[in-house]
């Protein structure tokens, strides 16, 4: 059992949702400078897999390791090392984009307003920095969520359908950001339906089901 010494390891994970056996002994490994594109039909367990990987959902059998050690032992370090973008953009409608970022990133690391503003700029929503998120479109909210992932400076990215509601320009920006992150030594697990145009070679995992 060579656990991924440097990155994320998911080992023989079984998960049941009520009577449905959603994940049947699934294993995967991610090392730095690697991107993994996970695809599969609806209900094949893509989101469940991500939730197990980031430690939100405890599998009935199997385990998840970070740098060789089970995440239950290194929970706080692991959480500081990951940025999870869930299916919903997970932003507070009544707060402005910048406030959302300052709050969520601030919980993990000290960051200046200028730095957060630059993250918004890189995802193309600098103009909405001071607007309450509820007035933004779904695509813009997706970009603010991506700015949060950037702001966290986490080596491991776990992105659930990051390209939904994005226009062509947005998809391009995101693909470039992921590529830049991975080539810079980071790791990315991306759940996406359609073809992922990633400059670097991305491993592919098709979930049965």
């Amino acid at each position, binding site marked *: 059992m060579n656990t991924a010494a440097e990155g994320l390891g998911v080992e023989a994970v079984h998960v*049941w*949702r*009520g*009577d449905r*056996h959603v994940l049947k002994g699934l294993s995967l490994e991610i090392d730095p400078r690697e991107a993994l594109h996970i695809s599969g039909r609806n209900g094949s367990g893509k989101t469940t897999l991500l939730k197990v990987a980031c430690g939100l959902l405890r599998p009935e059998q199997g385990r998840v390791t970070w740098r060789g050690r089970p995440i239950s032992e290194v929970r706080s370090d692991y959480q500081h090392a990951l940025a999870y973008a869930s299916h919903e953009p997970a932003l507070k409608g009544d707060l402005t984009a910048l406030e959302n970022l300052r709050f969520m990133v601030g919980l993990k690391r000290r960051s200046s307003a200028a730095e957060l503003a630059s993250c918004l700029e890189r995802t193309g929503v600098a103009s909405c920095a001071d607007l309450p998120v509820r007035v933004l479109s779904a695509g813009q909210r997706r970009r603010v969520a991506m700015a949060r992932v950037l702001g966290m400076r986490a080596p491991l990215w776990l992105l659930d359908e990051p390209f939904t509601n994005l226009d062509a320009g947005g998809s391009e920006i995101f693909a470039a950001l992921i590529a830049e992150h991975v080539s810079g030594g980071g790791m990315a697990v991306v759940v996406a339906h359609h073809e992922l145009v990633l400059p670097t070679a991305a491993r592919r995992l098709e979930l049965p089901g």
Partner: protein
Amino acid sequence: MWTWFYRLASPPFVYRTAGALMPWFLAAAAATIGYGTIAGLAFAPPDYQQGDAFRIIYVHAPSAWLSLFAYTTLAVAGAIGLIWRIKMGHAVAAATAPIGASFTLSALVTGSLWGRPMWGTYWAWDPRLTSELILLFLYVGVMSLRSAFEDPGRGDRAAALLAIVGVVNVPIIHYSVVWWNSLHQGATVAKIGKPEMPGSMLWPLLAMFLGFMCFYGAVLCMRLRGEVLNRERQAAWVREAMRS
């Protein structure tokens, strides 16, 4: 040393054992409750104070005891299920809840019926009855929380946590009700305490306690088999079990 503990956790073992024990529990319950009822009603002398009304104790005290015992079992089984992630713990907890609730209800009804000759009203907010009533609310809370979740596994874990929080609060609730009751009516209320009992009065009571416990064991075994099947429908051992 731990083998017996892990054997307890294996569903087929629990299913078979529950099936085997049930008839014995039922037989023991029938015998002891039979003796207790006949002896309690016919042979035990009437109480010098309450006359024959005291005979209600033969069904009230065991019910009240069982309502509390079942809630404690509910919390302990839930804790085992939650902490060691043993599904059988949740199965036992789910099986115990309705039984305990039914005995809480019987303790309440017999208690208030007993109150009628003593206090002149069916409900005089006696501290024990009030605590019993709140215990019933706790049961209903745990049972409705368990069934409120689609995913049975999550319902079990949530109900187990509530049962643990509940069992910690039961003594607090009881003490505060007793304090509150003494505030208003003073301690002169004739207690439904167990008056000092000569042997002929006491033996039927002990028999009824034993009988109720055996009855609880029998019904728990029956419900537990149902709970185990519901949770293990996909397992292979169920195929053989169904054939028998």
